[in-house]
C-alpha cells in the first residue's frame, strides 16, 4: 500500500463516518486535525448526493416532505453511495431501500412510486430511436399478424404495482394541492415511453403490462396476447396494440 492510498482510504472512511476522527496528517495553518474544516468535505458529499436524489425522486420527496426525505436520503447515501461518477445512474437501489426502511413502513406504496420515478429517469436518458408510425398497424396482414415479433423502443419501461402508483405519481407531479388518492383503490400498471425527448407516463389497461412484458421477452404477437388473456379475460388485443403504437412504444416489427 502506498502512502497516498492510505491517505485516501482514511479520508473516504472519515467522510462516510460522521463520528470518525479527522485523519492524522490533515491540518490547517492553525491546528492539526481541524474537525470543522474536514466537515466541509463531509457536508459537500452528503448535501450534493441528497440533492441528486431529491431531483431524481421529486414525488417521493413531496410525499415525505422535504425534511423527512432528506433524512431518508442521507441514510441511503451512507449505505449505498454511488459507484459511478455518472450521477444519472445513481438511485437505482432507492426503491428497494425504501421497501425495508422502517420509518416509511406505513407507506407501502412509496417504493413503487420510487420505482416509477427511477423508470422515468432511465427513459429520459435512453437511446434515441424513431418509433414506428401508427400506419404500420394498418399495414399488418391480419392472417400473419399473430406471428409478428416487436422491438420495443429503448426508452420503454414498465412499472407494475399493487397500489394506484400511476394516479399517485401523476397527482403529485402536478402543480397545486394534490387530490387525495385512496391507496387501497387497487393496483395500477404504468408504461413509461419517450418517443421524442419528452417522457410520458401512461396508465395501462389490465393485461397490458403482461402483454408488453411478453413482447419484450421476444414472444410473438399471438403468444403475447395469450399471456395477457390468461391474466385478464377482458384483454382487448386490438386496443392495446393500437395504444402501444400510438404511444411510441414500438420501434420495429417483423415476422418471427
Amino acid at each position, binding site marked *: 500500500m502506498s502512502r497516498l492510498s492510505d*491517505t485516501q482510504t482514511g479520508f*473516504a472512511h472519515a467522510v462516510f463516518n460522521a463520528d470518525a476522527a479527522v485523519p492524522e496528517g490533515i491540518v490547517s495553518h492553525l491546528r492539526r486535525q*481541524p474537525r470543522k474544516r474536514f466537515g466541509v468535505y463531509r457536508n459537500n458529499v452528503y448535501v450534493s448526493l441528497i440533492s441528486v436524489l431529491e431531483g431524481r425522486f421529486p414525488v417521493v420527496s413531496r410525499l415525505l416532505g422535504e425534511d423527512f426525505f432528506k433524512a431518508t436520503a442521507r441514510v441511503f447515501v451512507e449505505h449505498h*453511495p*454511488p459507484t459511478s*461518477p*455518472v450521477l*444519472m445512474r445513481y438511485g437505482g437501489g432507492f426503491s428497494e431501500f425504501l421497501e425495508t426502511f422502517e420509518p416509511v413502513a406505513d407507506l407501502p406504496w412509496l417504493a413503487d412510486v420510487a420505482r416509477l420515478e427511477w423508470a422515468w429517469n432511465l427513459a429520459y436518458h435512453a437511446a434515441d*430511436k424513431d418509433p414506428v408510425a401508427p400506419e404500420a398497424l394498418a399495414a399488418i396482414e391480419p392472417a400473419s399478424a399473430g406471428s409478428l415479433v416487436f422491438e420495443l423502443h429503448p426508452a420503454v419501461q414498465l412499472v407494475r404495482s399493487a397500489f394506484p402508483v400511476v394516479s399517485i405519481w401523476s397527482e403529485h407531479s402536478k402543480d397545486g394541492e394534490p387530490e387525495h388518492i385512496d391507496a387501497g383503490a387497487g393496483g395500477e400498471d404504468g408504461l413509461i415511453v419517450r418517443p421524442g425527448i*419528452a417522457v410520458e407516463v401512461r396508465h395501462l389497461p389490465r393485461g397490458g403490462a403482461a402483454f408488453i412484458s411478453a413482447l419484450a421477452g421476444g414472444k410473438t404477437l399471438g403468444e403475447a396476447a395469450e399471456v395477457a388473456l390468461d391474466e385478464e379475460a377482458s384483454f382487448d388485443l386490438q386496443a392495446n396494440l393500437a395504444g402501444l403504437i400510438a404511444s411510441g412504444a414500438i420501434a420495429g416489427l417483423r415476422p418471427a
Partner: protein
Amino acid sequence: MSRIENTDGSNPIPARAGVGLKPEHYAEILDTRPAIGWFEVHAENYMGAGGAPHHFLTAIREHYPLSVHGVGLSIGADAPLDTDHLNSLKQVCDRYEPGLVSEHLAWSTHDGVYLNDLLPVPYNAETLGRVCEHIDQVQEVLRRRMLLENPSTYIRFDGSEMSELDFLAAIVGRTGCGLLLDVNNVQVSATNHAYDAVAYIDAFPHQHVGEIHLGGHADDEGDDGEPLLIDDHGSAVADIVWNLYAHTISRCGPVPTLIEWDNDVPAWAVLMDEAARADIVLSETSVQHVAAE
C-alpha cells in the same frame, strides 16, 4: 510568451466570456441565441445514451463553441483511472468536438465509491508521479492536450513537500498539459490557508493558462474562528474575485473565461450580466508584460 493553442484548431474557444450550460436555460438559449462567446458542459451530464441532454447540446453546439469539463475522472486518486469512464469522456469529445477539455487536480473515487466532491491531494513526489501518469493516459486516449484546474481546498496535508504552484508547474513540465486557472479557487484557497492570492497569481505559470473559471463562494469560519471560504458555485462572483480576475488578466492576457454557477442556478439574464462584466475586463485590461520566472 507562448500561449497554448487549442488542440482542435477547427473549434477554438475565443478569448471571451463563456457560461456553464444548464438545462434550465436550454430552451431560452435556442430561442434567443444570446451573444455569448462559448459554453462549457460537465462531461458526465452527457454520458447517457440519448434523450433531451444530447438533443439540446447538439442544437446549441451548432451555434456556439463548446468546452468540455470533466468532474469525475479522479485524476488525483492513487488507484488507476476508470478506463470505462475515460472512454465515455472520449465519446463525449468525439461527439461534440470541444475546443477545450479540462479536469481537476483532485480525487473523487476510492474503492469503487464515488464521493461526488473534488477532494484534495498531498503535494509530494508520490502524488506527482501518480497524477502525471493519469494525465499522460488521458492525453493519450483523448489524443489532445487537456487543461488541469487548480483546486479550492479547506485543509492541507502535513505530508505535502511542495507548494501547490511548484506542484502544478511540475505537472505541466512532465505532461505538457495546460492549466485551467480558477480565480475563485485561488481566492478561496489563499483565504483558507492564509496566503496572498495576488502573489499566487503573480507566480502562476501564466503561459500555460488556457482557460479561466470564475464562480461564487460563501463565507464561513474555520475551527478557530478564522475566515473560511466555501467554493459553492451558488452565487455571483464576489467583488474581491473580480479584482483578482482583472489582475490575472493583466498578467495572463485575454484568456477564455467561464462564469460557473452550478447551484441555485439563476435566470439566464443574470449569467449574461456576469459574462458581460468578464468581457469588459477582457477587453479593457492592458497586459503588463512581466518576465517569466
